[in-house]
């Protein structure tokens, strides 16, 4: 039920991107300026990263600690694979399933965008603010 609930949100988010000429141009899921100013969805993605304490395993700079470096794996994972890992987890490796978290299900695309931006080197580590 909870997973189903997120689908309209995802659809809306995708629709929003599709209508954004800046995004369409370079095919990036995020918009960023000065390395630390990002679009609203990406900002919420970073807030989700922070609230779920992802840095405890993946490092403050996503460079990997007990968990793998997301700078590496985000270059490899398709968006579907990313979502699958987030929702179902990889319990045998210590990755929790986050399908029970409202914040994650509502901000999954933003989280993907944030981590993609980190892996691309376009978004800096640390605090972000909204791109006006």
């Amino acid at each position, binding site marked *: 039920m909870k997973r189903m609930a997120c689908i309209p949100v995802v659809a809306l988010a995708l629709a929003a991107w599709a209508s954004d000429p800046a995004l369409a141009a370079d095919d990036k899921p995020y918009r960023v300026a000065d390395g630390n100013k990002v679009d609203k969805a990406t900002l919420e993605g970073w*807030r989700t990263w*922070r*609230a*779920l*304490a992802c*840095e*405890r*395993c993946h*490092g*403050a*700079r996503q460079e990997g*600690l*007990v*968990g793998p470096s997301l700078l590496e794996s985000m270059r490899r994972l398709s968006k579907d694979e990313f979502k699958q890992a987030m929702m179902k*987890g990889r*319990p*045998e490796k*210590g*990755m*929790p*399933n*986050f399908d*029970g*978290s*409202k*914040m994650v299900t509502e901000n999954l695309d933003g989280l993907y965008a944030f981590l993609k931006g980190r892996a691309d080197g376009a978004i*800096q*580590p*640390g*605090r972000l603010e909204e791109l006006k």
Partner: protein
Amino acid sequence: MVLTQTGRWGLLLGLAVLPGFALANPEVIKLTQNARNWAMQAGNMQNHRYSALKQITSENVKDLRVAWTFSTGVLRGHEGGPLVIGDMLYIHSPFPNKVFAINLADQTIRWKYEPKQDPSVIPVMCCDTVNRGVAYADGKIFLQQADTNLVALDAKTGKEVWKVKNGDPKKGETNTNAPHIFKDKVITGISGGEFGVRGYLAAYDIKTGKLAWKAYSTGPDAEMLMDPEKTMTWTDGKMAPVGRDSSLKSWQGDQWKIGGGTTWGWFSYDPKLNLVYYGSGNPSTWNPVQRPGDNKWSMTIFARDADTGQAKWVYQMTPHDEWDFDGVNEMILADGINVRGKPRNVVVHFDRNGFAYTLDRATGELLVAQKYDPTVNWATHVDMKTGRPQVVKQYSTRAQGADVNTKGICPAALGTKDQQPAAYNPANKLFYVPTNHVCMDYEPFKVEYTAGQPYVGATLSMYPPPKSHGGMGNFIVWDAGAGKIVKSKPEKFSVWSGALVTAGGIACYGTLEGYVKCVDANDISKELYKFKTPSGIIGNLNTWEFKGKQYIGVLSGIGGWAGIGLAAGLEKDTDGLGAVGGYRELSKYTELGGVLTVFSLP
């Protein structure tokens, strides 16, 4: 009523006969009194980590060599240490929590136990799967598994005698603590303060596993086993009853239900008083703005009756925590400590908040509260009348507010000391304390609670204190009567290993780089022996004697919080490099891997 009478009887009996004989588990006490064994994780019920053995001395410790080693076959952080009873050694591993019974005569494995645990418990332990060791009593080895199953194994065969579920990992409840045997009970706690778990202490019958009592850290008086009239606390310079709903009144709404106060530390027991001592952890979340009030009884030292669980007295060290200064660290019981010219029987506790506390352990009276690292800055001092720390506004994450990065707080969330237990030398009445020397920036933010999901609500960045020696740890000697550091030995990294002190005049500890170090107990600046084990050490040093020879054993296997080197909440790319860089440098020295290394003289 019951509580008072039991206390009095305990006192009378204790005075009348040999210490502890009448009321405590005679078998375990007898085993711990024979220094050839190391029959409890801390060596004895008082948490001394002291041995009367003196074959290895300050003169000959330089000749120490490795006698044998044993791989647990497990990566990740290895805390706790070996138990030795007679000719058998029992050693455990982190998740999946294997237990090995090793025959000391030829180091063969007599039996091995490996529980089947749901791997979904691993992420709930985020991020390390430590276990602090097994306990022995009544011909059984007790294992507190990560998935909260408490298991009694036949010490001879490793076969399960009984098993009981202590918590629910689906709610974020897990276990890392060692079970403690006091009297006829096995006492255990619960972890999960970062998942909004409501902490409790539970006592099970050692014969059957039947729950004897369970006492929550927060909530209604009845569920905390607290008597509003008889449970005492330090109030206005004297002991006074806690009063009705002392916990409920200190929380907003129902926050106490997800309010933490978990109990994963080292407990102790006074057989004469029949009291169990332990501390409760941080209130949840780490964002203080979301939980106004003192958040009782998180961050509290508890003294409970071993038979009934009733709280005799409580003392809250950090009301309304704003820094994650869990109060779970070991409670050490020491007799005849000179406090302002009078010998007192006390409980000594080195808290995460950077203050070392000395309390009368019968009454709960606050005697001493002093900083055991001079860089501690979040409070100026503890007001001895109210017992409250005097918080410095600049370092108050509540005063600075949510979404503000409060900088330069000392100590960091991992405390001036975490769970790594100190040692007490009854001969010179001094404490040998492994410490952290780390400061932090702390930014709280709002979080929503979802059962089984992280409920943290702050990002942190950690680094060595500015204007200090540059390292992230110290090994210190502490005078608990005077509240003063006697001597401090700087270390490059946090000293995350339980110390050992012996009648041979040595004190030993491990380092995160992987060294076992033994120093002169009379002058800890004199390093007498050093050996590099296969991995960083977060385990505790234990000692025993077998066939006339003294051995010292320790688990290496880097991990735990220090090994993870948590650092987050960076504002700029260059921020926090001290912390990240500091702990990151560990990778130059060590890799994962659990090994027991055993030392002896040639």
